[in-house]
């Protein structure tokens, strides 16, 4: 048996993971596995909690994107208690949420994934981080990044109590009113965020797109997968982070699904494997065919590039220009190049900043009517948002007092878990040949997952119990012995070979 290489832990992401690469006797990659070694059990331990506590409890699934869970949870409470949030509450929520997107995408580009490009993928390990980025772009730029992020975080804390684990979400509304003074600060901040987003796109242009080596890496086959794409769209089928219908396009870019989140169990199912704590969602109507690409495989990708692929455009003018430019350069829609996620992320940052500006100007922003108190008897609620890392669905069942009896969470990075495994294995097989391995090459394998900006704390909260499932039974040699399929009504059929 050949050499075994372990990358442990994977770094510059949220969560825990390791990559194990098995080489055959010729030193080429036989298999590469991406394993998630963590699990916490949110869906089990949230049962018995009062539903209104969920926005604050589920935000602890992830401290990098707590606002995503907080918002998904808050919308689920709207659904659970069948209450429509007030117009002012909707504006406040969306404003907060888009501000969060600006801030979160900033963190990823400059701190997490970006260093791979800004410093270079095979730079020494000690330099492949934010400190190396600062070394490359200069302290002044670094201070700009730090300052804009702090201003966004401070405003999020003003609106939502805290930036890490906010408190604003309530069924039918938000907890706190916004003053005219705050509006003034917001308008200035929004303008600066737009400028900063434009600046970041410029950085990407100058450092990445003008560097032919990097462009070749982006367009290379090692980082290319032809999959389905999924994201939320508004009524004009443009990207929307807060609300809308879920749209799925196939690898050729044609729409195959457009549905309301309440019907999600008709469209999404999950696969369990023994070698990872994470599960692998896929498109139910296409079916699970394994970790492969193509129109016959139910593997679906989410997050920035997928959202842009699954949409007809951006809802704000500057972002739309960048959207068109990206697809021109990449050669059309949909774009299958995994590393283009970094680019799409910056376009989303610009859109989010433009939205903050629009919402900061909204008249209803500062009105006192921030809560609709007309709550009906709770029973079941389903809510969806786009988290920075993809589509995020919360689903709660409760008794008539609103005490939770069941919790299902379909978390963004979960959808990307199969694509990530595929991307890592493909990159490993393409880059590692003849037993030649060095730190730089291993980092390029890690780049395959980092583009997805994964959040494995999110992905391994624990996984739903009432989801349709497809389970494959294998013996120790890996031969398939049989399979069990459970549909979304809980009916199971077992077939043994």
């Amino acid at each position: 048996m050949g050499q075994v290489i372990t990358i442990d832990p994977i770094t510059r992401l949220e969560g825990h993971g390791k990559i194990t690469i098995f080489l055959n006797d010729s030193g080429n990659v036989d298999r590469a596995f991406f394993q998630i070694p963590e699990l916490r059990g949110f869906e089990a331990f949230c049962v018995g909690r009062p539903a209104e506590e969920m926005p604050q409890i589920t935000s602890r699934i992830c401290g990098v994107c707590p606002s995503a869970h907080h918002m998904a949870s808050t919308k689920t409470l709207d659904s659970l208690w069948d209450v429509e949030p007030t117009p002012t509450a909707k504006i406040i929520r969306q404003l907060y949420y888009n501000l969060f997107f600006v801030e979160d995408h900033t963190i990823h580009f400059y701190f997490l994934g970006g260093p791979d490009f800004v410093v270079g993928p095979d730079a020494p390990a000690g330099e492949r981080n934010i400190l190396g980025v600062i070394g490359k772009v200069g302290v002044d730029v670094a201070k700009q990044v730090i300052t804009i992020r702090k201003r966004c975080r401070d405003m999020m804390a003003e609106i939502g109590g805290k930036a890490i684990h906010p408190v604003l979400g309530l069924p039918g509304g938000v907890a706190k009113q916004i003053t005219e003074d705050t509006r003034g600060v917001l308008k200035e901040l929004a303008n600066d965020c737009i400028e900063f987003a434009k600046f970041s796109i410029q950085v990407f242009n100058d450092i990445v797109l003008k560097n032919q080596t990097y462009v070749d890496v982006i367009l290379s086959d090692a980082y290319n997968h032809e999959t389905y794409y999924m994201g939320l769209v508004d009524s004009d089928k443009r990207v929307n982070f807060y609300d809308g219908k879920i749209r799925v396009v196939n690898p050729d870019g044609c729409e195959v699904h457009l549905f309301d989140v309440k019907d999600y169990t008709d469209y999404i199912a999950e696969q369990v494997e023994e070698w990872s704590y994470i599960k692998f969602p896929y498109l139910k109507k296409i079916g699970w065919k394994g970790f492969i690409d193509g129109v016959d495989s139910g593997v679906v990708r989410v997050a920035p590039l997928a959202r842009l692929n699954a949409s007809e455009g951006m809802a704000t003018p500057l972002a739309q220009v960048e959207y068109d430019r990206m697809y021109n350069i990449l050669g059309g829609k949909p774009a299958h190049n995994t590393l283009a996620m970094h680019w799409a992320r910056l376009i989303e940052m610009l859109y989010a900043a433009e939205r903050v500006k629009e919402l900061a100007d909204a008249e209803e922003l500062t009105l006192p009517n921030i809560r609709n108190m007309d709550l009906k008897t709770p029973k079941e609620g389903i809510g969806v948002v786009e988290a920075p890392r993809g589509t995020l669905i919360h689903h709660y069942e409760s008794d008539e007092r609103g005490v939770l009896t069941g919790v299902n969470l379909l978390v963004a990075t979960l959808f990307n878990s199969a694509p990530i495994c595929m991307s890592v294995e493909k990159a490993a097989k393409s880059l590692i040949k003849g037993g030649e391995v060095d730190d730089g090459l291993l980092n390029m394998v890690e780049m395959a997952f980092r583009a997805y900006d994964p959040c494995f704390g999110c992905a391994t909260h624990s996984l739903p119990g009432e989801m349709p499932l497809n389970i494959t039974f294998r013996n120790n040699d890996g031969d398939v012995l049989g399979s069990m399929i459970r549909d979304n009504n809980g009916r199971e059929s077992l077939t043994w070979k």
Partner: protein
Amino acid sequence: MSKPKVAFYWCASCGGCEEAVVDLAERILDVVAAVDIVFWPVALDFKVKHLEAMQDGSIAVAFINGAIRTSEQEHIVKLLRKKAGLVVAFGACAALGGIPSLANLTNKEKIFNRSYHNSPSVDNPTGTVPKTETIVDGHTLKLPEFYETVYKLDDVIDVDYYLPGCAPVPDLIMEAVLAILEGKLPPKGAILSPDKSLCSSCDRNESKPEDITIGEIKRVIDIEVDPEKCFLAQGIICMGPATRDGCGEPCINGNMPCTGCFGPTDSCRDQGAKMIATLAPLLEGDDEEAVRKALEGIIDPAGTFYRYAVSGSLLGAARKEVE
């Protein structure tokens, strides 16, 4: 003279403590100028093998956040204990178990059932679940063991200091870092935030009546919350009286009650028990009937009074010797 070495690690955590460090904003430039960060998976590419290669005691201080849920987490924190002079339990999860320790109110079996099986009617002994060792295509793959109980950090290793909060606040983080660099630390075992309850700094303190009496406990969904008045005086449970000060009351400023993330003060052994001791006498009525009615609004006492502290409670996670 070389700069002191510092390590950050996360166990069963959410990454919020990492974000709290990044929230030092421009102060982080001062920190990185003063120390050498040798291990920090969220931001730097150093791997476990780099950590293993370091000399024992060569790391000045290791900041560890997250609760202990798996064998891998136990292994790494024991490694860090060997390599570090000081260990700081960073954040509520490391100090008290945090939100993940709510899992101690359920159990591993229910968690796995909920995650990987479904109904009790599945009659299938070979149902697929993640295993600590599997073989795929002839290759052996391992996963760490998922423990029965969620532990806080000092259940597993010796801890020198505690920085409370979910997440800890930048000002207290900076104070702690400076104290370490300047060698001005309090006695070992100290919790690095003021030893008094939240109520002492709360802006709404003045609105508290001389005697608070609660006729009926209210949930936040029941009433429109008055943004100026003490939550307890409005009948809403606020963990302020049983929670340590130092956060700056951000939740209160967000017009929501405190949920207790800083944990208890030094004089209190068990946060939830203390809250019961404080809250119960505020309820109106002298007979069981009246008290029972007043208590109806408390739906989930354990989850409310020990939101972040189940592992730290007297009953919540009875200790087991961890190998």
